[in-house]
């Protein structure tokens, strides 16, 4: 017993010495070294301040859907203060019936059925702190967001002594994963396997506190940048894709192979495996060099492979030209085996969502690919907090998705161009926003939105619409420049929403608080209306006025503009007269209404607010104009179609008679 205490004391003493010298074993880990030339990126030196280095040696059993791994996490304390408590995500535990994720999911979808095949778990077999010893018994599950005692997606461990500023600490964690059938993002479906949120991941010290949220129904993720060295052992027939790049493959005698991946300047690591993935490769030559595009297609979707490559290249080109370079050597695109794993982003890897029959005019697939690639920038590199500022990645990304698709397909057809029906992507985003426009501000924490619909409509739809409308204020080119500045300045960092907003103000040279306060921080509704536009003869009072004659009869024209909503926005009003004259008025919108009056030898033809149709955040476009001439064509067209649909319903029902 005494011998044990002596050995332990010696180990602690050595550990302390190492820490004191700033030269702990962890600091020598490859990922932490800034001297090593990167191999997974196109840069000459590390692109991020690598706070973490993960070395994971994992063995996956596809028959049991289990994974056993040893993880060595080296954490360099960047907090500027001693730290003795470290929180970790253990997100695979979200897929349990009592978890916060499932509880919130059930709140949103009351018909949600729990089945045991969905159950997943991550168990810590042991947790050792190098130089300190085994702290497995010290693991404590916490629920910082909702206090749910049954949620096991976050745990923390307290060290017997703190880690000093800029010192490193090394955690050695042995864990066992049991994957479930895919509910959301991670798990298996038949032979397809998506390994996401599969390893214990340390929280982020951000804004003076640990930021390590539970896994919620509507939230995504947040982690520190670093280097990942992942060894994955699995059967030799598996075709594998992963974050980073593959640097070696060793075939083992037991029918397995061990693949080694290296990811640098990334903040998460995901992988996928399926025996019959079809690999399609291409290349994109960006401003930092050639990037390999590796697409893992489902065998039944090979007719869509070229479409994948084409849209990825088109998207990368525009991101490179408009916002900044893609610095990684590879991007892996996964056509998932289950749609529940589709449309999700991970560093240098994302999942699409396509079907074998997807027609070319239905741009839903392109929207997903452009969006998920966009996350390489707005999440992958500009690593904002997806729990607390979800609009910064989803909203900005939805906006850039629209811009890119508009550029490729045209603004009116970027969402749909099929059988004579058209719809722009920006119109879809706007319509999404109009679904629940005033429950939550964009800045609400993602898991605190009133409903899942409000989260989606505001975080994606409203944010994109607000940025589109911002073009009206500062110009499209200025906003693009602001986004480029924001990207270049904050890539490989964790900026806040104020960082973004200030960058936009800086790029535009304008104080935009009046707009941000209403659109970003507020729930104000913008709705302007042309209440009336009429021309009356000046000699109306005469008992027998002369015959009305175009060009010689004088009229008094009055246009009444009404601000119906509580969102104040300066607008233009264009008034057209029947002599071809056109007048543009500028109204600051501060009062509730304004009246414009003219005396001319011409009658009003139309009055229109926002004639360029750039105020997308306006809730109702129809009341933005008033034409003197009645045009009933649209009304009758809809009435006719409505009649026909009713008749069709009658015909179907009468089949039963």
């Amino acid at each position, binding site marked *: 017993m005494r011998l044990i205490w002596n050995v332990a004391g010696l180990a602690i003493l050595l550990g302390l010495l190492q820490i004191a010298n700033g030269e702990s074993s962890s600091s020598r880990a490859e990922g932490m070294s800034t001297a090593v030339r990167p191999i997974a990126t196109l840069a000459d030196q590390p692109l991020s301040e690598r706070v973490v280095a993960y070395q994971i040696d994992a063995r996956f059993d596809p028959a049991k859907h289990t994974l056993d791994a040893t993880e060595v996490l080296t954490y360099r304390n960047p907090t500027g203060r001693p730290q003795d408590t470290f929180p970790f995500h253990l997100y695979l535990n979200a897929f349990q019936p009592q978890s916060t994720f499932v509880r919130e999911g059930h709140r949103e979808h009351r018909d949600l059925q729990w089945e045991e095949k969905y159950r997943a778990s991550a168990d810590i077999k042991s947790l050792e702190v190098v130089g300190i010893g085994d702290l497995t018994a010290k693991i404590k599950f916490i629920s910082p967001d909702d206090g749910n005692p049954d949620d096991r997606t976050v745990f923390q461990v307290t060290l017997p002594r703190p880690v000093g500023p800029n010192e490193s600490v090394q955690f050695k964690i042995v864990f066992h994963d049991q994957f479930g059938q895919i509910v959301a993002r991670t798990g298996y*479906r038949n032979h397809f396997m998506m390994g996401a949120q599969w390893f214990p991941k340390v929280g982020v010290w951000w804004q003076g506190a640990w930021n390590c949220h539970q896994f919620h129904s509507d939230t995504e993720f947040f982690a520190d940048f670093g280097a990942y060295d992942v060894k994955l052992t699995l059967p030799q027939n598996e075709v594998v894709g992963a974050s980073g790049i593959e640097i070696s493959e060793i075939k083992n005698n037991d029918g397995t192979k061990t693949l080694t991946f290296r990811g640098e300047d990334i903040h998460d690591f995901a992988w996928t495996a399926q025996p019959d993935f079809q690999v399609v490769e291409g290349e994109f030559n960006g401003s930092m060099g050639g990037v390999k595009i590796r697409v893992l297609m489902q065998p039944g979707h090979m007719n869509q492979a070229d479409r994948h490559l084409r849209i990825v290249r088109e998207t990368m080109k525009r991101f490179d030209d408009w916002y900044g370079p893609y610095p990684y050597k590879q991007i892996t695109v996964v056509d998932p085996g289950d749609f529940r794993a589709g449309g999700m982003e991970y560093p240098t890897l994302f999942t699409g969502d396509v079907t074998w029959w997807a027609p070319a005019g239905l741009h839903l697939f392109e929207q997903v690919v452009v969006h998920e690639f966009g996350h390489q920038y707005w999440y992958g590199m500009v690593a904002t907090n997806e729990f607390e500022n979800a609009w910064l990645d989803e909203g900005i990304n939805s906006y850039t998705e629209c811009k890119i698709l508009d550029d490729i397909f045209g603004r009116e057809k970027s969402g749909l161009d099929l059988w004579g029906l058209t*719809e722009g992507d920006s119109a879809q985003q706007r319509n999404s926003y109009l679904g629940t426009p005033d429950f939550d501000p964009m800045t609400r924490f993602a898991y605190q939105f009133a409903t899942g619909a409000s989260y989606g409509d505001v975080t994606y739809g409203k944010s994109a619409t607000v940025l589109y409308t911002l073009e009206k204020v500062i110009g499209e080119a200025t906003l693009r420049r602001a986004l480029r500045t924001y990207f270049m300045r904050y890539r490989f960092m964790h900026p806040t929403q104020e960082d973004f907003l200030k960058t936009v103000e800086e790029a535009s040279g304008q104080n935009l608080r009046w707009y941000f306060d209403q659109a970003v921080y507020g729930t104000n509704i913008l709705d302007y209306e042309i209440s009336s536009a009429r021309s009356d003869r000046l000699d109306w009072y005469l008992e027998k006025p002369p015959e009305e004659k175009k060009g010689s009869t004088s009229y008094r024209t009055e246009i009444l503009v009404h601000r119906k909503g509580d969102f104040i926005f300066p607008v233009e009003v264009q008034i057209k007269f029947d002599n071809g004259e056109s007048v543009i008025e500028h109204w600051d919108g501060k009062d509730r209404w304004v009246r414009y009056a003219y005396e001319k030898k011409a009658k009003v033809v139309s009055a229109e607010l926002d004639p360029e149709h750039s105020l997308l955040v306006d809730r109702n*476009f*129809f009341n933005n104009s008033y034409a003197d001439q009645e045009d009933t064509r649209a009304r009758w067209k809809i009435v006719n179609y409505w009649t026909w649909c009713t008749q069709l319903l009658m015909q179907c029902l009468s089949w039963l008679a």
Partner: protein
Amino acid sequence: MSDQPGLLWEGFRRVWHYQRVLWFIFFISLVLGHLGTSPVVHKLDRMDHRLQAKRLSDTFDLGTFSSFSSDPEIKLFDAAGTSISISLVFFIGMLFLTGGILEAYRSARKLTAREFFEASGAYFWRLVRLLAVMGFVLTPALMLAGAIREQAGELMGSAAEEKAGFGLLVIGLGFVGLLLMCIRLWFDMAQVRAVVEEESGMLRNALDALKLVSANFISLFWMYFRISFFGWLVFAAGLYIWAKMPPARYTWTWLVLEVAILFGFAVRLWQRACEMIWYQRRYLATLAVPVQAPLVPVPNPLLTIAPPPGEQTS
């Protein structure tokens, strides 16, 4: 496959001969359809002076339409309730008219309006009871359709089983569609018997009709299916022409769609006429036994012909 040559042509002739029934039904559907739009018209008034409406008249921009229809001040689809209610009224009306339609096809002469509506009223409650019996038969078929849809949806969620899911959906729902056609055919014949045989016990009538259809299934179904297929082709052609027409020519596109509706009703009446003729031919063939002929009473248009020997059920 048909045991009665010229049946379709004879059925077509009978629909043509009594085409005012078709026009009457179409007219009712048109009037009710327009009635169903009255709340929509009211909501659409406000777009008459709006420039944005050009995006719907000159083209048909889905984004513009969905933003207009979902506007809290408009809520266009709230008006759907009226259309659904009116469709239910039409359904009840069609159930009422079925007796008159079948009597018209059975009769050797044109019915007066009074005779037509008297026949409609005379058979209405029998057909309601028959509908209730059909409801019991349809329920498991519809449940099967629901189960197939759910299972296919589950399969289509997986890329490896996507095509299998799609196949299940197409084949499964196709099978259910055929099943529904069979059930419809069965109860069509029960309706024919109810009119021709003056049947009053609808459960017994349904069972007898089932025996009749089972014994002559291929012949009857082939007749029913060919007419349905023709109807589908015409409907698809109508939609195709509609999709190819310039969106601004909405009067013409509407006319094309209305023609498709008219054909839909015509096809259904064609089926009913053929079923009636098929039954009558079979019945008349039985009557052709010389000894039995004088015993048959002269048919009163509003009374039915006595059933063939051996099929007396009431």
